[in-house]
């Protein structure tokens, strides 16, 4: 059993509008047999935080195109993407890229 994991989950660039406009969420993920990774975090977010129109955030098992995922202020590409194993106190930021000018 993996211990519960506490995270700061943040949304920005407009992605927060899918979460009642709240940018910062303190999240505690429950114990589960396998370690938490970003893939399972996304499922958890879909079930627990995302109230409506999940297709604006999730596509398949990943985020939709145009959303950057940042783990502790670094691009998730550098960290293993969906397979990154979450550590207690990690900061995970989902940022919608902006196109206005």
């Amino acid at each position, binding site marked *: 059993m993996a211990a519960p994991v506490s995270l700061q989950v943040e949304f920005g660039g407009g992605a927060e509008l899918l979460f009642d406009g709240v940018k910062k969420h303190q999240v505690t993920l429950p114990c589960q047999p396998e370690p938490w990774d970003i893939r399972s975090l996304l499922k958890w977010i879909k079930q627990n935080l995302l109230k409506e129109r999940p297709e604006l955030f999730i596509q398949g098992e990943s985020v939709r195109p145009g959303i950057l995922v940042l783990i502790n202020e670094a*691009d998730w590409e550098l960290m293993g993407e969906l397979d990154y194993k979450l550590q207690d106190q990690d900061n995970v930021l989902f940022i919608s890229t902006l196109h206005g*000018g």
Partner: protein
Amino acid sequence: PLPARSALSAAEILRYSRQLVLPELGVRGQLRLARSSVLVVGCGGLGCPLAQYLAAAGVGRLGLVDHDVVETSNLQRQVLHGEARRGRPKARSAAAALRRLNSAVQYVPYRAALRPRSALRLVRQYDIVADCSDNVPTRYLVSDACVLAGKPLVSGSALRLEGQLVVYNYRGGPCYRCLFPEPPPPDTVTNCADGGVLGVVTGIIGCMQALEVLKIASGMGSSFNRHMLMFDALEGRFRNIKLRPRKADCAVCGDRPSITCLQDYEAFCGSSATDKCRSLRL
């Protein structure tokens, strides 16, 4: 690039004296600025402050691209255009305002949208490109053109109370497609007309773009190669995010690119580059 010069005139030394004394710039950096040309794609909320500070600093030539005309709702953030310019092409309005500030800079207004057919020829004529556009197809077009022409791209964007900045295709770093291989679904994209934007947020990001252009042009290098600046105006908070390197499998800047000439970006993105109402009616 513009012809190299070996010395500044007495008038230039007076005019730029406050920046010539900076050891990081100096006469050498100023001469580099004077022979640099910068293409500004979009003369709106980001392009206005950007062009203003590039002109003031004495870059050699500014290309100013915008297909649109000045409207009343622009004046809340597009500070080069005055009330009397409403209905006039933004590219020309910007050039006129900039000429009053620094008549020694060459201004080349282009009253047209950047188009796949002509973008590459245009981008090749400039040393650095600033993406100050306001829509997804243009962002892919500008980035692909910069990769094909081998030019650094200083890209800014703003919406509501947030802003973002990245320097692409610079010193081996990633391009826009490395970060965003697929365009966002059209109905997830919010523009400034729908989402709104606080004018001074475009001011802050446009000034930051101008800073990075000046650092690149003068030889100081950029802080935002492989890094994104994220700004939250409500919190007054800036973050520097470390980004991925260039991707070997990128469709345009990768080791075996599949994109070797410019495409139909409106079809690729499912949205228009010039409509006020962005969704393509397919």
